[in-house]
């Protein structure tokens, strides 16, 4: 009983601290989101709650097995249309072939934010750059502009504004997939949101809300909408943790080097 009471008091204090936390400001007067951030959860494996499971490659055994996770969807299950749910199951069964991550294509939004790689935020007044280690992916958030997406791209077109201390980013203009340059090995038909086959099409619209909750944590929330796939918008939520190592910097994870043989190896001259 005493332990329960302590837990409640502690939780209340934490929530109170989060809501009253005033983030430091940049010289431009905006909440300072600069830094290296990373998700520490299993969302990249499966956004929904899932048990541990064997991995997709027998030879890798436990090294690439799926760790369990309680899920990050706050209003789940993900509201698939019936036909889209059937497709999700099909894509999940063919994830090694269908997942753009396997082929080193750019991961898109929101996936880039919770992959198991650090994301560096560099914040200017009119633009905020978010860079992942994975595939050197970059997204530029253009602040307070009304310009529509000039073209569909892998990372989409992101427009931001401040709502108090929360950065609100509206993103659309996403590519829904691609065809292979030489044959179907390079094709992805839809864009995966995780390794479990949850997916979206070019109809994706994402609204993210990002705010500092203390010195070393961001609250990250993304509402996902795609009328081609879901019956309603749905939302994921998770903390992002600051990488506090001294002299932190992004490394190169230029994974094209690792997938050339996988995708086009048969064209290699022997």
């Amino acid at each position, binding site marked *: 009983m005493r332990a329960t009471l302590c837990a409640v008091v502690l939780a209340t204090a934490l929530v109170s601290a989060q809501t009253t936390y005033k983030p430091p400001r*940049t*010289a431009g007067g905006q909440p300072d989101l*600069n830094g290296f951030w990373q998700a520490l959860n299993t969302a990249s494996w499966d956004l929904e709650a899932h048990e541990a499971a064997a991995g997709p490659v027998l030879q890798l055994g436990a090294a690439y097995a799926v760790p369990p996770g309680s899920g990050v969807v706050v209003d789940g299950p993900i509201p698939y249309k019936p036909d889209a749910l059937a497709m999700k199951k099909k894509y999940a069964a063919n994830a090694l072939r269908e997942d753009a991550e396997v082929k080193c294509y750019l991961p898109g939004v929101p996936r880039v934010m919770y992959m198991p790689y650090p994301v560096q935020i*560099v914040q200017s007044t009119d633009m905020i750059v978010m860079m992942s280690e994975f595939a*050197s*992916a970059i997204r530029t958030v253009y602040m307070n502009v009304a310009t529509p997406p000039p073209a569909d791209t892998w990372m989409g077109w992101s427009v931001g504004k401040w709502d108090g201390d929360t950065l609100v980013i509206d993103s659309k203009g996403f590519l829904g997939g691609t065809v292979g340059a030489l044959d179907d090995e390079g094709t992805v038909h839809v864009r995966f949101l995780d390794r479990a086959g949850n997916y979206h099409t070019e109809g994706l619209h994402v609204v993210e809300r990002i705010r500092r909750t203390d010195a070393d944590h961001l609250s990250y929330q993304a509402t996902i909408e795609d009328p081609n796939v879901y019956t309603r918008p749905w939302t994921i939520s998770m903390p992002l943790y600051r990488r506090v190592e001294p*002299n932190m910097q992004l490394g*190169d994870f230029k994974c094209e080097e690792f997938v050339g043989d996988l995708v086009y190896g048969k064209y290699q*001259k022997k």
Partner: protein
Amino acid sequence: MGSIRRSSLLCALVAISVAGLAAQAKYKVSRTADGQPDLQGYWTNLTYTPFERPKELANKPFYTEKEAIEAFNKAVEGSENQVVHYVNTDFGATPVQTGAKPNLRTSLVIDPADGRIPSMTPEAQKREAARIAEQRSAGPLARTWRDDRGTVWCVFHDRAVPAVTAPYGSNYQIVQSKDYVVMIYEWNSERRVIPLTGQPHGAVPLYAGDSRGHWEGDVHGLARHSAGGVGDTDLPSHGAFHAYGRRHHRSYLHR
């Protein structure tokens, strides 16, 4: 565009360019909210000025205005008459499309005084000779993506550091915070993150090198090719890794 009309336009451009040189000396750069010189925006390094100076111009770092117009005209005509497998006005591949202007300089290399890249070391010459011999025996085209990680495989942008004009899409964007300058290249979606914090170089080599920057007045410490600042990049210090990059750089220059 007729040649007379083009010449008139070029005269105007040169006049603007020369006037611009005078204005540069007085120009006071705008500042970011952090008080640093504001380099942000979209830039291109497309140019008709050759990287190395033609040998016949060895002692001539600058054209006269008349010569600059003639050299520019010749280069424009050359780029428009290329035989290529695509429409060469696509992709912004022709510099004049993106506003490249006549430049009085006769080469992008300004040091040494002859505008030429210094001779390679004996060891590098051996590597280069071996590479050329291999290329001659194999034919001009890459046999596999492994033969060219930059231009064919697109693993990285092999002309990002130093910034050498790419075959197309020689455009980049600069974004600054108090502690970083980020350069985002259109070619290969490449990026270069330059800490201004004075932090030590990392332990792991990077394709684009491991850059550190500082401010000297209004000159960014890394902008040596365009602004004459003092460089502080670590490009040559990673041994074979950068030797690899340099090999491709040389192959580009020889095309």
